[in-house]
């Protein structure tokens, strides 16, 4: 059996409303006049919260064996983390004034 448990549809509707609210907050924050870096931080945090909720509840990882979550999600996050090596070069391009 793949799923030991799952939520009733009423709970999924609640999660759906919550995700819509988070998307609304993202738009609200966009027009609050934050600096680019602060806005990016807010938007990324909210996007990861949304993604976590979708993974756990919509994609049922919460009800599958934990090894599924640890194997796939952690490995993807690790690869994405390793991609962060590009930033020094991106800012070097700005400092060189190539544009």
């Amino acid at each position: 059996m793949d799923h030991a448990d799952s939520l009733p549809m009423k709970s999924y509707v609640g999660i759906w409303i919550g995700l819509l609210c988070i998307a609304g907050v993202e738009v609200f924050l966009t027009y609050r006049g934050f600096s680019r870096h602060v806005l990016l931080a807010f938007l990324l945090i909210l996007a990861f919260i949304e993604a976590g909720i979708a993974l756990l509840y919509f994609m049922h990882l919460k009800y599958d064996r934990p090894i599924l979550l640890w194997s796939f999600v952690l490995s993807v996050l690790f690869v994405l983390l390793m991609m962060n090596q590009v930033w020094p070069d991106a800012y070097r391009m700005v400092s060189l004034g190539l544009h």
Partner: protein
Amino acid sequence: MSDTAATLTHGSGVVMEPSPYGVQSKKFTMWLFIASDAVTFGAMLFGYSYLRAGTPDWPQPFRFSPSILNGMVMTAVLLTSSLTMLAAVAAAKAGRKSTCMQWLGATIFLGAVFATLHLREWFHMFDEGWGLARNPTGGPVMFGATFFSITGLHLLHVLSGIVALVVIAIGYKTSWLDQGHVETTGLYWHFVDLVWMFVFPLVYLMNAAR
């Protein structure tokens, strides 16, 4: 019957250990695809972010109306399609075939609405002079390249998902496919929704004219 039990006697008497994941092979395969696809989208978003960070005069062309408003509606439509997909999977698990078909139909419809809104946004941008290598403001052209590549790949996933859902709906209705196929396709559809949760803030909101 679980796949775990099947693997124990698979082959010519070879005893195999049970799957540590405890899921059907098709669902496991979908997870492998999702992991690789997540890295693909991640790499594209990193490429876009690299160029954006390294370009001082990066354009921010999206006005609240129509672009951001359109993106908000697209987000709501895609999130709602995930909900209808969940209802389809729940109906399939309960063996309610006609109810499942209705929810699958609703998901396909919402996917088509999303794609239509997406294309409307694209054509609006084409009218303004944006293109893969065109910037009507005279600034860097990489905005168009990254925007159309990322949203184009996502749109391709939505369109592929619609086709997959149609095939699954027909297969499930004719009992050629089972509820496991509906669930596995649902997993893909939710992933497409998940990707949009990053594309909308990073590609649209971060480029909103403020």
